[in-house]
């Protein structure tokens, strides 16, 4: 009986210790707010063009979810967990003369190698001029996802509707089709957004093998 108790205590201690050592580090969302710029001239379209260029300088795939709204957003490349570690929104509003634009940035700490303030300052300075600082590169996912990983779209995907047509999706969020046309991908949970001849919202199946939606149906080779 005593031996059984010893075994039980040891097993529980071992289990607890290992669980404690592998427990995921709590992540924090860090939001940067407060940079606003007023331009006495220029149109909403001018603001939108600058917003897109400024976002794409530090993030990728800047888009205007509602065309003509003047609201632009973009995400970073994928970080260690296989998902973006940073994002930003640049929002333009037309004034009787010129426009006002706000910059809001978010990062996940500790996965992001830079702060939301540093990101927002760079985007704002790119927009209206100012010193640009170097942002540390985003670490690559570790371990690198392989096979039909559910936290990444990395791999080769075949079109279910067009035999022989494939997409190669890279770790950094790039994608290239078998004709050499490139685009990008982002995965948030089981929702994937492919930027490829427009933006397509798709759903990743629970087994990580199928992508459906947005006019496409793909199967991963894994």
């Amino acid at each position, binding site marked *: 009986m005593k031996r059984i108790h010893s*075994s039980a205590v040891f*097993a529980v201690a071992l289990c607890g210790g290992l669980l404690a050592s592998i427990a995921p580090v709590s992540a*924090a*969302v860090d939001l940067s707010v*407060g940079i*606003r710029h007023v331009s006495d001239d220029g149109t909403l379209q001018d603001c939108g063009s600058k917003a897109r260029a400024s976002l794409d300088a530090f993030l990728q795939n800047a888009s205007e979810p509602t065309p003509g709204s003047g609201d632009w957003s973009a995400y970073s490349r994928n970080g260690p*967990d296989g998902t973006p570690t940073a994002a930003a929104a640049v929002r333009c509003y037309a004034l009787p003369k010129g426009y006002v634009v706000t910059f*809001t940035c*978010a990062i*996940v700490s500790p996965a992001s190698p830079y702060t939301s303030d540093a990101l927002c300052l760079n985007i704002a300075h790119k927009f209206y001029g100012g010193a640009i600082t170097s942002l540390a590169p985003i670490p690559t996912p570790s371990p690198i996802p392989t096979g039909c990983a559910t936290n990444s779209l990395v791999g080769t995907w075949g079109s279910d509707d067009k035999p022989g047509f494939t997409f190669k999706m890279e770790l950094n969020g790039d994608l290239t089709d078998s004709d050499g046309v490139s685009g990008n991908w982002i995965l948030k949970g089981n929702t994937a957004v492919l930027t490829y001849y427009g933006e397509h919202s798709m759903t990743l199946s629970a087994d990580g093998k199928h992508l459906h939606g947005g006019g496409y149906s793909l199967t991963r080779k894994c």
Partner: protein
Amino acid sequence: MIRTWCTRVALFGAAFALVFGVLATPASAALDLAVGTKKVVKGEAVSNCNDKAKTALNAVLENALEVGGDTGEWRASAPPDSSGNSSAAAAVHCYPADTGYVVTFTCAVQAPPYSDSASGLCTKLATAFDSKATAQR
């Protein structure tokens, strides 16, 4: 003796199954950013926008703060977890326009652990902002 060994093996097996079962669970937390509603309110002072922004942010999140003083740019976060980290935050921007103001809602969450999407959070904020507006009339 044999029974004891069997028990030990069973216990160790259960422990390792639990540990590596947890290890095998895929991490699916993702940063989600939403560009929420943009509203133009006419006939109201921007100070009303500030009041509503603070109230709405405190109703949905906590510790609403106007960044840099009298800027009309408000921020708040979700209650922190046991490690002191918050998994959601939002910004409300007020700016004078026409005879009133323009207000925008921008939200960011990491889900999980946050239970709602960034878009859902922004919708709640906009609703809370409007509720305050209705209550004031």
